[in-house]
């Protein structure tokens, strides 16, 4: 080609036109579309992609908040959280070839299946797999030592917390427990979750695709706020007494449907103790009692649906707080309510006379007294002491259905008490239209405590109102809320819901219930030297086939100015004889609880002159008896009783039978071998007051015998003692002290 050939080859306008079309048609449109596409991805859908990106880029570490503690009223810790560790692996960082040996070692230390560890480690894309939860320091140190010594990569620890219940099963149905995620699952733990839990913190940090921290600038930290603590109205010691005696009752009377009890501060409605036995250990709430476990193992094939169902049923059975969740037939205990209503509405006076022939005809229906032969002539107080049904039928008829219904409502028996526990049940009662019916059969049966089912908490709250001056209090358990530093954030003030009966009527009721214990059906709960009131209850389970009974008793102490109400309810005891009533079975249990409580609370017995006149008694033979029945016998001899051990029969008594001891002295009844001691050191008593010496000896498990003349109202001091201080003595041995008037 010549150079001329090029010179003629010029760009034509047709070419330029097509260039323009290409430029506009392909590139302008192309770039335009891409800008739109970017707009779509970044502006319209940007947040969505950003969210997904952040999900993979960020790692949030939960900073655990410490769960608050639960204290009893005196500051004893009932539930507390402590740091434990989870063992985790980061499969992406594991060296799979060498990990097999490590997995075997870890499986052995941690007591988990090796196959489980390998399964967790197999997810190679993951950086976090838990292989064991909540191990304690010691175990963690062993794992740590192993991984350091053998240079195992990719195994790490994660901090966690665990709940510890220091006293094991104590107050378990009340406290509840926490679940695997450390949240309250049951009982007070669940009820006060929002107070106890605190707010977990979180640290969000950016990580690169290998899970390493990217840079500080992407990190943000929100501190955890620890949970507050709660102080309960529960007194750990009294709770302990209640549970011990309920346990003994369950053992000695072979109780089938559990026993329940409540101790309430009569004046404030504060619950001092509440228990259901048998219960469970909140440290390990999923372990069944041996009896329940054998029911499960013998009747069901593991792994089947029935097995799971039964196991769940048994779990809920042992967790259930009967004191608030199970309405029961209060029987004659309800007569406190009928009496209070009749006295308040002035339908009865203490001078009124009643006649009981053993049967009453109500609109053509024969209603029997519990004593078929009848009680004959009696005044109102005697009728109460006898728990005579015809007397209360008469009271009900004098008041009429609507009035009784109204009193029941005012006593809070038609609604939940509102106690601060989850799972409270309501009562079952005769509706107004039936109670007001002409026939009055329903009214009559309601009057002496049938046809109504109440929860124990409803019963004790109403009974407390009847004796405390007529004030229905709101029962409660939360005394105070404390911040993590221990400062009081709030204190519960007792709430009076209403004045149900007058102060005057309440005073009359106090006299009636004291008469019941002093010389009536409640005498088996009497404690020498103390004024106690109470009412027994024996009822048949009407809505259930068979001949099952519920025995109950409500006691009040001290009657000079009632402070405590104690209710015990025994559901389905084994009753071999006709003599089994609330009076004979439940009353001694309450008596035993009150004995321990009064001793603990520092009340001293006051003996009447008559009791003092006949100073010494001979101790009966109690070997082989049921502890609470033996106690009833001692009580009738004006002797005090200390039941020691958890067994169902007395295996040793101190002093021995035929021993002569002063009235008001304590007989120790042993039900377990291991509680017997013969290495008690006799304390120094000279110089102490009579009261102090008595207390010190009883606390050591020794008995006291006084020498010298006791003058009423004159302070006395110990001048001599035998055996001498420092001598070894056995449980129940008698220490003789000589008293003289103090200077």
């Amino acid at each position: 080609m010549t150079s001329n050939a090029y010179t003629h080859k010029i760009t034509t306008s047709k070419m330029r036109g097509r260039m323009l079309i290409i430029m506009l048609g392909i590139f302008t449109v192309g770039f335009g579309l891409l800008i739109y596409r970017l707009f779509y991805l970044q502006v319209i859908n940007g947040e969505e992609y950003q969210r997904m990106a952040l999900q993979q880029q960020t790692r949030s570490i939960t900073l655990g908040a410490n769960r608050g503690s639960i204290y009893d009223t005196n500051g004893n810790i009932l539930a507390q959280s402590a740091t434990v560790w989870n063992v985790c692996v980061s499969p992406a960082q594991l060296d799979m070839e060498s990990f097999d040996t490590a997995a075997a070692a870890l499986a052995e230390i941690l007591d988990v299946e090796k196959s489980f560890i390998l399964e967790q480690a197999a997810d190679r894309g993951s950086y976090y797999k838990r292989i064991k939860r909540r191990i304690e320091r010691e175990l963690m140190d062993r794992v740590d030592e192993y991984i350091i010594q053998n240079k195992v990569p990719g195994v790490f620890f994660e901090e966690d917390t665990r709940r510890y219940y220091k006293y094991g099963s104590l107050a378990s149905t009340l406290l509840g427990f926490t679940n695997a995620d450390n949240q309250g699952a049951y009982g007070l733990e669940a009820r006060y979750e929002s107070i106890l839990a605190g707010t977990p913190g979180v640290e969000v940090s950016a990580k690169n695709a290998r899970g390493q921290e990217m840079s500080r600038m992407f990190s943000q930290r929100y501190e955890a706020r620890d949970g507050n603590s709660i102080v309960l109205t529960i007194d750990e010691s009294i709770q302990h007494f209640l549970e011990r005696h309920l346990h003994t009752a369950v053992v000695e009377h072979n109780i089938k449907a559990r026993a329940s009890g409540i101790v309430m501060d009569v004046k404030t409605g504060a619950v001092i103790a509440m228990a259901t036995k048998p219960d469970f250990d909140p440290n390990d709430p999923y372990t069944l009692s041996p009896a329940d476990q054998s029911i499960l193992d013998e009747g069901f094939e593991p792994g089947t649906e029935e097995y799971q169902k039964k196991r769940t049923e048994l779990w809920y059975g042992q967790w259930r707080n009967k004191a608030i969740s199970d309405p029961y037939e209060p029987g004659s205990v309800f007569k406190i309510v009928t009496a209070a209503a009749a006295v308040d509405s002035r339908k009865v006076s203490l001078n009124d006379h009643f006649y009981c022939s053993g049967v009453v005809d109500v609109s053509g229906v024969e209603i029997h007294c519990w004593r078929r032969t009848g009680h004959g002539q009696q005044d109102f107080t005697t009728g109460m002491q006898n728990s005579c049904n015809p007397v209360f039928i008469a009271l009900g008829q004098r008041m009429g259905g609507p009035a009784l219904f109204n009193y029941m409502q005012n006593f809070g028996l038609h609604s939940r008490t509102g106690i601060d526990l989850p799972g409270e049940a309501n009562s079952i009662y005769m509706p107004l239209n039936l109670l007001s019916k002409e026939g009055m059969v329903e009214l009559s049966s309601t009057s002496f405590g049938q046809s109504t089912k109440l929860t124990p908490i409803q019963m004790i709250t109403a009974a407390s109102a009847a004796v405390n001056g007529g004030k229905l209090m709101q029962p409660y358990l939360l005394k105070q809320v404390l911040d993590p530093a221990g400062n009081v954030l709030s204190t519960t003030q007792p709430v009076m819901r209403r004045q149900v009966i007058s102060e005057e009527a309440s005073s009359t009721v106090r006299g009636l219930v004291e008469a019941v214990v002093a010389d009536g059906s409640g005498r088996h709960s009497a404690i020498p030297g103390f004024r106690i009131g109470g009412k027994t209850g024996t009822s048949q389970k009407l809505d259930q086939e068979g001949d099952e009974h519920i025995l109950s008793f409500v006691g009040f102490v001290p009657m000079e100015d009632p402070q405590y109400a104690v209710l015990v309810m025994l559901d389905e005891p084994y009753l071999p004889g006709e003599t089994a009533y609330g009076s004979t079975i439940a009353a001694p249990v309450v008596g035993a609880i009150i004995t321990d409580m009064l001793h603990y609370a520092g009340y001293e017995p006051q003996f009447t002159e008559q009791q003092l006149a006949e100073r010494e008694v001979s101790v009966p033979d109690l070997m082989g008896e049921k502890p609470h029945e033996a106690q009833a016998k001692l009580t009738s001899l004006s002797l005090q009783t200390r039941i020691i051990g958890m067994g169902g029969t007395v295996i040793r008594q101190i002093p021995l039978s035929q021993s002569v001891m002063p009235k008001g002295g304590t007989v120790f009844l042993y039900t377990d071998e291991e509680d017997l001691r013969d290495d008690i050191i006799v304390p120094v008593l000279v110089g102490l007051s009579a009261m102090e010496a008595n207390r010190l000896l009883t606390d050591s498990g020794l008995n006291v015998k006084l020498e010298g003349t006791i003058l009423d109202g004159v302070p006395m001091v110990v001048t001599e003692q035998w055996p001498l201080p420092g001598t070894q003595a056995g449980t129940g041995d008698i220490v003789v002290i000589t008293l003289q008037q103090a200077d």
Partner: protein
Amino acid sequence: MTYAQGQQEGRKRIRLGLFNFKEGGMDLTFLILVFLLLTIGLVMLFSASYADAFVRRGGDSFYFISRQLIFAVIGIVAMLAISTFNYKVLERFAYLILAITVFLLIVVVLYGFVVGGGRSRRWIDLGFITFQPSEIAKFALVILFARMINANYDQMHTFRRGIFPFLMAMGLLAGLMMLQPHLSGTLIILSIGAIMMVIGGANLKWFGLAAIAGAVLLGLVVMIPGVISYATVRIEYWQHPELDPRGHGFQILQSLYAIGSGGLMGTGIGMSRQKYLYLPEPQNDYIFSIVAEELGFVGASLILLLFALLVWRGFVIAMRCRDRFGSLVAVGLTTQVGIQTLLNIMVVTNTIPSTGISLPFFSYGGTALCMLLAQMGVVLSISRQTTMEKA
């Protein structure tokens, strides 16, 4: 050799055949656009690559940027030098360049090496330098087509002169590239070739027929057993990468996370999080995802606008160039940059299924950057010939 055309227009010219200085100089707008894109590209390459380089190149955060900078300097020198050359010598060497290209394409299939996890042999290692013959093939095609169109311009509307020889040439290059195989390179070759043919005056009906033939061929391919399921799977993962977030969909999902995270204003330069080992090889084909994450919609759009302006300016240079060969070379080289940019960003935004195309001025690759800058030098050299309005 004299350049009568230049003399006819009264321009001063140094009578030295190989060089081409003129009074008005080269197109400064185009030069500035090239420098702007190159500068932004280098900054973004550093930002996108340092985290990956630190981890994968033994703690050397500067691994990629230092190498790219060296080539950029060489490339700039080459570009400026070439802009002073007389591009017309290329017309004479068109077949020689083609022959060298064909030789290299055969060599690469036989002796080339594989980069990354792919199966394609695309690279030639000369010991001190590695390069892809495909890059040279694109340039060769532009020069060849410019020469062929220039020579046969009067008969471009015929099939015999205007279509057939071009098909043969494209077929030869594309066929050799498919042996590697190199689908995206082939696609670019075909696009550039077609656009140059259209501008060169080829009868548009043949393109219609080609489209129909392509459709029929596609239909026949689909009938081959197994193809449908293979294609459906690929299309499925293209449209729903979230179905296999750790496998097929991984890279594109990570790209979309990055782009989406940018939002309107971006996370700020250097502040990408996706570059921390999430997005694989953020310095290569997917660099624009990190650009979009750090600079946001506003910044990413501005960069697209710069590319668009570069294409526009390239076309303006072509239109202004009275010399048909020069005009065609300018169109071809500009189209190459434009098409490659469009396809790259379509891939990273998941507008089309993924295929390996690098982003001009941004993606890591020393020889490719040198080639690109050299080609920009050719366009600049052509711009010295633009005479229309400037006269």
